[in-house]
């Protein structure tokens, strides 16, 4: 523990196939990415001049309390960053919904079980350092392995179907003030097997991808010759976020925050296991703890086929704090009553006959057995806030959005916090309190630097490079393609429409002006179309997805982004920057 800390404690980079041009991940909630040169972000910035998808860099800052420390801070001579990323997916257990969350069973299969030298299954470029302002890129590739590092390993040979190689897990850059930018891989996924078959959404032996994760540390050198180490952070590389301005109902911040609350980090909310309910208990702030949940439901209607009317809300009524009279309790209860409560993970229709929300697949709707949780629900903490709000015990106050805690929250609120099957950025390992620092609930316990090779096991008190992303699907494109819609019983539910759109609006001929804070699709918006695949038959293999996961490996970088735009006088979220033809039929068939 030092007085200087890196923020956000978990930063998310995203793959792209443009080698040079990149953008910085959004640092505001539901914000657009940030151009490194500070220009306003436009739809042209998702791709480079050759139409290749830009990588999203994770930017890291150093804070001392609420004060940011950069190369421009008086007294600072130098800041040296160290990053060590690895990809351990191929060496880890198979992903099977929530099996393993409480520890793996002895009969749980490993990926690539027939490979004896498990270290050969790790992609590990070793650590890299960078310092200075606007520093030249430092690559985490196979040609620049640090001298003396003993764990380096990359997949050999050409990978199919794209005939590419994985030569790098990304690179480090710095900005004008010496902040760190971490870029991930180029989105290369493949197998040495020329037939390049993907058999399953999460586990495919012989396959590789170039995501990864690992610790980020830094040392500040002062003009007086002294130096300070800085509390380390973690960087993780994820698939692209195709609708950056649309948030998930349960974000990664919500999930980690909930685990922290239940572990006692916020006794004003939950004290030694007792929820602080009632009029004298915790009063959630409508602005920051309730309204965002409702807005997330509203914005889903731009990326999923859901009716806009029941997802539009009158925030004035819902945010009215009751005084001596409570005019809107019935309306608040109406919302509470359709939200799936804790322990009802397998309930789609309530006792009253209402369809329970969210209408999203849960952690485990795939494997029958003891851990079934078919449908997603709010976290315990989110649900508690909604309960308190419905009962009238809440405040409605403006919230300051600055400082390192806000940065953490904003970055993680732009990520998926469920369902974890396995997920988009990270999975249920993020719910395991053992991997976090006791005193800093969002900061991962980091193992001391190593000369390699990396550990093959799991030590929650000393997390190593690759220990977060190894649970995710290999290659990521398989899960990303398949987790569009999920047939459950006679219904078809959605997965992560805010990260991986199901249906999108195009830019057609509109009219009229809307003043709503959050726009809602209407008669003028034109029809929704499938983001990928077809939409007229929910039983088809290519219903809002590619028929074959391998096609996602081939075409992911050409899919469109969803962006809020002024379209002929009306604010809408529409598809932009797509380089794949529409309609598109793979293989020309």
């Amino acid at each position, binding site marked *: 523990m030092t007085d200087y800390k890196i923020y956000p404690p978990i930063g998310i980079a995203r793959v792209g196939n443009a080698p040079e041009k990149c953008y910085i991940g959004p640092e505001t909630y539901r914000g657009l990415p940030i151009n490194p040169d500070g220009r306003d972000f436009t739809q042209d910035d998702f791709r480079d001049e050759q139409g290749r998808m830009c990588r999203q860099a994770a930017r890291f800052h150093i804070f001392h309390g609420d004060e940011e420390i950069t190369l421009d801070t008086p007294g600072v001579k130098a800041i040296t960053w160290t990053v060590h990323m690895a990809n351990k997916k191929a060496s880890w257990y198979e992903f099977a919904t929530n099996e393993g969350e409480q520890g793996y069973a002895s009969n749980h299969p490993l990926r690539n079980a027939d490979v004896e030298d498990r270290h050969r299954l790790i992609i590990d470029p070793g650590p890299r350092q960078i310092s200075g302002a606007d520093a030249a890129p430092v690559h985490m590739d196979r040609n620049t392995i640090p001298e003396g590092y003993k764990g380096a390993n990359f997949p050999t040979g050409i990978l199919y179907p794209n005939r590419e190689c994985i030569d790098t897990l990304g690179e480090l850059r710095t900005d004008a003030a010496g902040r760190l930018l971490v870029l991930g891989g180029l989105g290369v996924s493949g197998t040495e097997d020329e037939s390049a078959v993907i058999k399953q959404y999460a586990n495919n032996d012989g396959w590789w991808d170039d995501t990864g994760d690992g610790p980020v540390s830094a040392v500040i050198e002062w003009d007086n010759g002294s130096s300070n180490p800085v509390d380390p952070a973690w960087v993780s590389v994820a698939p692209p976020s195709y609708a950056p301005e649309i948030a998930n109902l349960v974000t990664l911040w919500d999930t980690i925050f909930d685990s922290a609350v239940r572990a006692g980090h916020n006794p004003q909310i939950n004290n030694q296991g007792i929820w602080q309910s009632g009029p004298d208990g915790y009063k959630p702030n409508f602005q920051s703890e309730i309204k965002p949940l409702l807005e997330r439901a509203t914005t889903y209607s731009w990326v999923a086929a859901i009716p*806009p009317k*029941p997802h539009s809300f009158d925030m004035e009524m819902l945010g009215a704090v009751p005084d001596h009279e409570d005019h809107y309790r019935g309306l608040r209860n109406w919302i509470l009553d359709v939200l799936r409560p804790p322990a009802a993970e397998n309930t789609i229709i309530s006792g009253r006959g209402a369809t329970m929300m969210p209408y999203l697949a849960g952690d485990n709707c795939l494997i029958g057995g003891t851990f079934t949780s078919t449908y997603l629900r709010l976290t315990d903490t989110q649900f508690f806030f909604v309960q308190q709000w419905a009962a009238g015990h809440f405040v409605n106050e403006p919230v300051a959005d600055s400082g390192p805690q806000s940065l953490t929250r904003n970055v993680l609120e732009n990520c998926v916090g469920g369902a974890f099957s396995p997920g988009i950025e990270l999975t249920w390992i993020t719910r395991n309190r053992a991997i976090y620092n006791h005193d800093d609930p969002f900061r991962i316990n980091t193992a001391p630097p190593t000369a390699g090779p990396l550990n093959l096991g799991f030590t929650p008190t000393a997390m190593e490079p690759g220990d977060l992303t190894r649970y995710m699907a290999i290659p990521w494109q398989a899960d990303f393609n398949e987790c569009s819609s999920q047939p459950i019983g006679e219904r078809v539910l959605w997965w992560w429409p805010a990260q991986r759109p199901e249906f999108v609006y195009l830019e057609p001929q509109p009219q009229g002006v809307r003043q709503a804070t959050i726009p809602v699709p209407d*008669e003028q918006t034109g029809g929704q179309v499938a983001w990928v695949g077809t939409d007229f038959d929910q039983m088809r293999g290519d219903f809002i997805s590619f028929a074959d996961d391998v096609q996602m490996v081939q075409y992911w970088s050409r899919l469109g982004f969803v962006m809020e735009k002024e379209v002929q006088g009306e604010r809408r979220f529409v598809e932009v920057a797509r380089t794949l033809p529409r309609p598109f039929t793979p293989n020309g068939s």
Partner: protein
Amino acid sequence: MAPSETARENVSPGLFDRLISTSEPALQDLQEAAQLALQVEFTTIPVYLSALYSISDTGSHVYQTLRSVAMEEMFHVNQAANIIVALGALPKFTGDAVPTFPGYLPQANPKTTPMVGLFRASPDVFANVFAAIESPSQYGAPPQGDNYDSIAQLYGALVAAVDAYPGNPFSTTGVPGRQRTNIYLGKFGGNVNEVMGKESFHAAVNEIVEQGEGTVPPEKPLVPVESFGTYNHYGKRTDGTYGPILGTPYELSHFLKFREVSLDSANFPATLPILSNPDSSDYTNPQAKRLSDSFDDHYSLMLHAFEATFKAGDSDPYFSVVLSIMHRVLPHLARALMSTPAFADGDSSVGPNAAPAWRYRSDTKRTFGELTQELEDELDQLSTSPRENALRTHLKTALAGDKEILTSAKALGL
């Protein structure tokens, strides 16, 4: 009990004769005709809800189908009330405006329309009562206000009368009422619109008629695929699965929904053994009598408050009282009744059990506070027998709902 004539007496004799015969209908006649339309829609709601609550499995297709129709009928009531407000009158939901059962739809032709009543759900009730209520009018059927054969004809007569009115009979300012566009919640079809003139009136009526009965002839899609840009329904898709549906296709008309259920009798879910067209004076189980009175009193207070929500002014009890009684009290009281034997020493799993009578009780002098206290006493008197578990759960939930709105109800003088 003989079929009720109240609803008919409630409308001036010869209303539609006058409307049809004159080239300049009086505004008051238009108001009465619109109130009649409202009462027709209103009449269907207790009928559908009684059957709905008698279905045990709330997740069943039949329950979900009937629930969607009942909700959309509430939308029709709301839309009809807006028409009345725009015509310068206040919609009535109490007194003579409340339907009584069994009976015919107000002013309907008893020879061609079904006897409507409070029935335990069954395929035959869906076929002979529900589908019949929502039956499309025959091709070429004239607009008809008195003795109509289908609801569409009644609306046809209303539209004809409004069209004949010289100038714009609608007004959004200087009227005693308040149109409501924010109380129709949830995923169900249709959007409540403000009525401002003849054009928005036509749009409102079209939506009601198309959603309910479908149009003529039935082979021709009413609204084949409305050019509506969003998936605004979930239901049975043309690919045979359940999921999002673009626009408002013909298959979602109430008539066809009921027809589909009635034809699939093999899959009809289990129902509670309730009496049809219940009359609490027949009950010999005093608990059933008390619960029946409690239901009717809650219902009456709810209607009273609901009527007030359409009056212009600051006070709006909709979200504080009305919605809570609708969602958190009445459904549970209904199911409590349906789990209570109507006759002394009865077995609730065998029946016959009591059921809500949906009586408007203007004579009751009990306050909301007294109703709450009675429910509490009722709960205290329950035995601990596991046979009363369902009843206990429903009463507890209803009581919790009562307690939540006690302060607001008192403030309203209820």
